[in-house]
């Protein structure tokens, strides 16, 4: 068969037929188009956010509390100081709760639980937590800490709701990083006679630290943008508060309450607050990416 010399045009016999080539071109074109479509909303959001948000920014925007006065111009409706401080305080407390617990559970999963049925159950439940809508976390905390104690809303209750939200993110990301710590490092330390807890604290955790910081920052960024869990756990007040046992304002809640206002100036404050929030979160994301790039593990 092969002895016979191919007759006719080689490309016509062995090449790709025009109809197949056309189909290939069309499919690739469609895929590219869809990719561009996927990027358009991002551009639009960032553009509109900058355009509207920068207009609302001024020095007094960051140094005054919202007044609740909605009838006059920008100068009298106040800024978003209490919202920024409230977000920072509540997210800081939420991180202080979620990070140690999350890392501890991840250490247990990797160092002790491994492939036992119990570890698999814990992993399953942590994944379940990941999928729980954030407003349901708000309901949980409301039931236990507001109904349960008969007291009112408070900043720390908001923090607890946020920490529930962060916990699964911290656990799963820390677990992934801890798994990447080479077994050889652990074994060397054990062979030198170090007890298990020394191995964990002096070898495993320091090695995994930069990678874990990335996951933590992403969890913090997620918590900072959440509105729903705060609505009936911490919100809402207009005043700056440093007392986590009292009502507390936050950026997302402030935006949410401003969106529904009929006054243009108040809606503009929402844009300014939204830009502030997005800049904060993008900064956290950026730092997380930079750190993860420098990490030797990931």
């Amino acid at each position, binding site marked *: 068969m092969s002895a016979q010399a191919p007759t006719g045009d080689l490309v016509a016999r062995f090449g790709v037929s025009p109809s*197949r080539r056309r189909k290939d071109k069309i499919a*690739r074109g469609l895929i590219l188009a869809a990719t561009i479509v996927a990027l358009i909303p991002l551009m639009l959001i960032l553009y509109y956010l900058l355009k509207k948000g920068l207009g609302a920014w001024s020095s007094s925007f960051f140094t005054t509390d919202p007044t609740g006065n909605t009838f006059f111009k920008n100068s009298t409706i106040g800024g978003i100081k209490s919202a920024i401080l409230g977000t920072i305080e509540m997210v800081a407390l939420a991180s202080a709760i979620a990070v140690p617990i999350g890392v501890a559970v991840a250490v247990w999963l990797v160092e002790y639980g491994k492939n036992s049925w119990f570890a698999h159950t814990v992993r399953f439940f942590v994944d379940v937590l*990941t999928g729980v809508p954030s407003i349901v976390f708000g*309901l949980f905390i409301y039931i236990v800490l507001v109904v349960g104690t008969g007291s009112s809303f408070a900043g720390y209750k908001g923090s607890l709701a946020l920490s529930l939200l962060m916990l699964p993110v911290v656990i*799963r990301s820390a677990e992934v990083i801890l798994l990447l710590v080479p077994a050889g490092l652990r074994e060397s330390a054990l062979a030198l006679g170090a007890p*298990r807890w020394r191995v964990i604290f002096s070898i495993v955790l320091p090695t995994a630290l930069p990678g874990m910081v990335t996951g933590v920052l992403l969890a913090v960024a997620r918590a900072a943008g959440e*509105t729903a869990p705060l609505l009936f756990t911490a919100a809402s007040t207009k005043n700056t508060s440093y007392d986590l046992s009292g009502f507390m304002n936050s950026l*997302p809640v402030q935006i*949410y309450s401003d969106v529904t206002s009929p006054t243009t100036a108040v809606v503009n404050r929402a844009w300014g607050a939204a830009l502030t929030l997005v800049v904060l979160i993008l900064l956290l994301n950026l730092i997380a990416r930079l750190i993860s790039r420098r990490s030797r593990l990931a």
Partner: protein
Amino acid sequence: METASVPGGDRALLARSPLARFPDRLLKYGLSVLAALILALIVFFFIRLVGEARPAFAKTGVFGFAFDNNWTPSTGHFGALPLVLGTLITSALALVIGVPVAVAAAVYATELCPLRLRTPLSILVELLAAVPSVVYGLWGIFFLAPKLQGSEQWVADRLSFVPFIGGGLVTIPNYFITGLVLAIMILPIVSAISREVMSTVPLDQKEAALGLGATRWEMIRIAVIPYCRSGIVGGAMLGLGRAIGETIAVTILIGDAPKLGSQLFGQGYSLAAVVANEFGEAQGVHRSALFAAGLVLFVLTLLVNGLARALVVRSARSGVPSGTRGGTGGILVVDTAAGA
């Protein structure tokens, strides 16, 4: 046998004293208890939620609650059908619009894109996940919805013969705009998981397809897509879970009309939105009904997410020899990073 071969004899001499072993035990059991506490916490929350929702279920019955088309708190009617359907309509729209785009973006990023653009492209798509949902709501209601109102009206007029889609007056907040914004919100997670799954397709298979004379597109269709199907479906389901649970953006965009919308471009309500909107003023049975709505939401997302995890995990396991990757870790961490 072995102990005998240790020079100097007794192995007990080499072992740590009970006192030195104590911190080890403490750490081990302390951490185990902590892990168990997390399980206990979830179960506890669930039981409390059921307890709080019970008065509403007692009044309407579980089926009455889920399938009655009458949510009028002022007269004590708590039929959540308009809310459940609102949630399902908007989430389904989000899937229909979002998943094809997300998968296409993933295909482009893994198979067609120039190598140098790959990482920037993924980062850009994932930036969408960093935008908080309240900002999506703000942007949707003040920018997207007014801009699209004209075209929506055009479509509604042209398709007036199609039930539900056509006819009627287009309102600024409506089901469609909610679904569209939800589609944008689930894009990053669906895309990231699809990309992750596609990167597990063995090079041999792709090269074999190309070697047999397949074009790029045929290679994608023959070698990549079938291999990743369950992973992509799983990613889409995770996106669905997100869309179902999304609260604030939906509350802003859906119009919060406590009845079943008669058309796609009309106002409606969703489970999460009703909780966010009415919880502040609710009392008695109304409050309990809102807890019940939260419970339905919780169970719905549990089912969807459970199924999604199973699919993603199976897909990730099928091709990869166990042990070469950190389980499904990479996939899960991408998922969790796509939060907000």
